C-alpha cells in the first residue's frame, strides 16, 4: 500500500531511517535493506582537507540508490539552519530538508519560534521542508501557514527510547490535519512504539537510534518494518475504541441453564 505522498513523492515504505551510530557501514547497509526504507537521513559536518570520511560516506549513500533527506541537526539559530539547508541542497541535490532548530541541549527540544521562521524562509526559497517539531497544534498550524506540507512531531526526545509521550496531543494533531502527511520523528525505542504511532493514523515513522544502537540492528530494523506495516493495517481496519465496562464476546442467548 502506497504511503501518502511527500511533496509529490509516493513512498511504499512508511519507515524513514537515520544513518548515524551504527556499529559499521556494513551493518548500516544491511539494516537499511532489512528495513525496506526508501528514504535515509543524512547530515553535514566539518571536514578538513586531509580527511576523506565525507567522500567515502557520500559514495556509500549514492550506491544505495535511495532518496536522501538531509537534516540541519545541531543548529540552534535560524541563520545556522538556513545556511546549513542551503549547503545541504547543493551537496545532496535535493529540495528536501529535515529542519531542526534546537533550543534545549538536555531534551533537544525544538525552538519552535525559530523553526517557524526558518521554515518560512526556506519554503519561500523553494525548499520542501520536513520540520522536526513538537505535537503543539498552534505551532503545527504556523508551520503549515509557513509552507510546510509535511509535519514531523516528536514522539519523545531524540534518542530517549521513551515512545509516545503525549498520545492525546498526537491524536489531536492527526485529527486537526487530516490532509497533511504526519511522521513521528524521534524518541521511539521498540517496534510497539512504532505500531502505536501508526495505529493513531500517522503516515510514517522516522527512526535512528532505536535501530542503530540495538544489540542486533539488522533484526531490529526488520522488526520495526513489520510493526509499522501491522500498525498501519490496524488503523485502516478501524480498531475498537476502549470502553470502561466488560462486554462478553460469547453471545449469552441460548446459554444452558445449569444453575440451581
Amino acid at each position: 500500500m502506497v504511503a501518502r505522498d511527500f511533496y509529490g513523492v509516493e513512498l511504499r515504505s512508511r519507515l524513514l531511517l537515520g544513518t548515524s551510530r551504527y556499529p559499521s557501514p556494513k551493518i548500516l547497509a544491511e539494516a537499511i535493506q532489512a528495513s525496506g526504507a526508501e528514504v535515509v537521513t543524512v547530515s553535514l559536518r566539518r571536514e578538513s582537507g586531509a580527511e576523506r570520511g565525507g567522500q567515502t560516506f557520500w559514495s556509500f549513500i549514492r550506491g544505495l540508490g535511495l532518496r536522501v533527506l538531509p537534516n540541519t541537526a545541531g543548529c540552534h539559530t535560524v541563520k545556522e539552519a538556513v545556511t546549513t539547508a542551503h549547503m545541504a541542497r547543493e551537496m545532496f541535490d535535493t529540495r528536501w530538508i529535515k529542519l531542526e532548530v534546537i533550543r534545549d541541549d538536555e531534551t533537544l527540544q525544538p525552538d519552535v519560534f525559530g523553526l517557524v521562521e526558518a521554515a518560512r524562509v526556506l519554503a519561500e526559497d523553494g525548499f520542501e521542508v520536513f520540520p522536526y517539531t513538537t505535537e503543539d497544534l498552534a505551532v503545527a498550524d504556523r508551520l503549515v501557514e509557513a509552507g510546510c506540507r509535511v509535519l514531523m512531531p516528536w514522539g519523545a526526545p531524540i534518542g530517549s527510547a521513551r515512545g509516545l509521550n503525549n498520545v492525546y496531543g498526537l491524536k489531536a494533531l492527526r485529527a486537526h490535519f487530516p490532509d497533511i502527511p504526519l511522521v513521528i520523528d524521534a524518541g521511539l525505542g521498540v517496534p510497539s512504539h512504532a505500531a502505536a504511532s501508526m495505529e493513531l493514523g500517522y503516515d510514517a515513522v522516522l527512526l535512528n537510534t532505536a535501530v542503530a544502537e540495538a544489540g542486533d540492528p539488522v533484526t531490529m530494523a526488520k522488526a520495526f518494518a513489520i510493526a509499522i506495516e501491522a500498525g498501519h493495517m490496524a488503523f485502516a481496519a478501524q480498531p475498537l475504541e476502549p470502553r470502561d465496562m466488560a462486554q462478553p464476546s460469547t453471545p449469552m442467548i441460548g446459554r444452558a441453564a445449569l444453575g440451581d
Partner: protein
Amino acid sequence: MRIFVNGDQREVEPGTLAVALDALGYGNRKIATAVNGRFVPAPTRQSVTLNDGDKVEVVAPMQGG
C-alpha cells in the same frame, strides 16, 4: 593572510575562496562552503575574495538521524 577554516587558524595566499580551498587540499572534493556564516555556492567560489580574518566553513556528507 590569516583565515579561520572550520575554526582553525590557517595561513593562505590572498585570493579567492576557490584558490584557498585548493591550497588547503580540498581539490575537487564533494564539499559545501560558507564564509562568515553565509552560504557560498560552488559556482561562485571563484568570484568570492577572502579577507584577513574571514571565517570559512567547509562541510562534507556525514551520517545523520
